[in-house]
């Protein structure tokens, strides 16, 4: 069970459950009446890649037509199962020394802006000292859906009777007003939400729905404003 440490507007906090909201299952690809499996397979050996073939002398295109040099019949088609990631040097050789890791930042124009040693960014949604909290900023649903694209939603659920009351009250308050509340992480509640180490930072908008004694508390996550490229913020 994934957990989130959440504080309400009255500064009461609790650690509760978090589940991803899944897309309704869609159709699968197949052939009626046939049992198929989806597999990854070897399509070419290194000698059959364009990078290698293009260095050979002669008319490569004609060679491809005449003799299929890109296909090694001994191995092409072989099922590729579990593999281990390795890094090759710029010369294509296996590294025998530890590589260095850097984070490279690019601007919207694609130009490199900054390069710095990579640093791990910890998750911040289940911190004992800094619960995820209401920022005090609320928006109507109509406003929020025209300003942000929500790429993920997670559902917040109770783990016992007390947390049911805690969450139901939140959901009812938001549902009655037709609003969503902006949540923030960190000591001051201003940071974006990061659900796992080095995960994508998201702005979280909490939506509540109630139906009699039942409730839904949905945390909609966005890392993208609805803004035309080049338009002023």
């Amino acid at each position, binding site marked *: 069970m*994934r957990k989130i440490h959440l504080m309400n507007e009255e500064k009461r906090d609790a650690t509760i*459950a978090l*589940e991803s*909201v899944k*897309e*309704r299952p*869609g*159709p699968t*690809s*197949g052939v*009626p009446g046939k049992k*198929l499996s*989806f597999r*990854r*397979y070897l399509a070419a050996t*290194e000698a059959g*890649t364009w*990078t290698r073939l293009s260095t050979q002398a002669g008319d490569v295109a004609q060679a491809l037509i005449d003799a299929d040099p890109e296909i090694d019949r001994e*191995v092409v088609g072989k099922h*590729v*199962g579990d*593999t*281990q990631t*390795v*890094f*090759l*040097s*710029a010369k*294509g050789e296996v*590294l025998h*020394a530890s*590589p*260095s*890791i*850097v*984070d*490279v*930042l*690019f601007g*919207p124009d694609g130009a490199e802006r900054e390069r710095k040693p990579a640093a791990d960014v910890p998750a911040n949604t289940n911190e004992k000292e800094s619960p995820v909290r209401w920022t005090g900023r609320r928006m109507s649903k109509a406003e929020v859906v*025209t300003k942000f*694209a*929500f790429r*993920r*939603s997670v*559902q917040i659920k*109770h*783990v016992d009777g007390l947390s*049911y009351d805690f*969450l139901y009250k939140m959901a009812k308050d938001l549902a009655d007003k037709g609003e969503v509340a902006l949540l923030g992480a960190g000591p001051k509640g201003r940071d974006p939400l*990061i*659900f796992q180490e080095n*995960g*994508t930072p998201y702005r979280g908008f909490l939506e509540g729905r109630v139906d009699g004694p039942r409730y*839904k508390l*949905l945390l909609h996550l966005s890392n*993208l404003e*609805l803004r*035309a*490229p080049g338009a002023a913020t």
Partner: protein
Amino acid sequence: MAKPIIVNWGGVQSSFDHEKLDRAKLYGKRQRWILDPHGQRCERAELSRDGTLLIRSGMTAQGYFDEAGAWIPNSQLVGLDAEGKQLKHVPSTLGEPQPLEGPVDAGEILDLAVRSVYVLSPEGLDPKLEAALKDGKVFRFPFCYRGGYDPEIAYLVGNATGYFALVGSPAVSEWCELQTTIADDAGADDDGDELDFEMF
């Protein structure tokens, strides 16, 4: 250039050119690079478990195989429902007028698992629709980019910076009741990948 998105609302057509919107276009992007001892960028590759095969970019493909191990060409594949029955092929909606429904409840978008976001450039926009979008109204229309068996839903929205289409499929959330609590199952602790909160 892709065909335009054409919608029909109240018997009047509006047409939009479209371009995918992503973070890199608005904010830039961050990439984590692995550098070799000479400061040059490394290439990521894979080594088979038995260590006999180094797999570099471009050396693998994916596909469907039958029980006898024969490869099934994509042209033979169709969409199947949960019972294995063949679904009807849906043609691309681009370039073809689609019925625009609405205004719909803005909350509908919150139940959409968004797969793509497009920024739209109006080529011929019904003034009534323009006014409704500028007023924050939300509209819905069928969407299928290339044609296939999994048509999507698109929502047309507007704000001060432009017009947008949010495309995806409905997501499913469930009602919570007092009697139903989440078990603290240690074995189910590893569903983090489903959220795909990966580096960007």
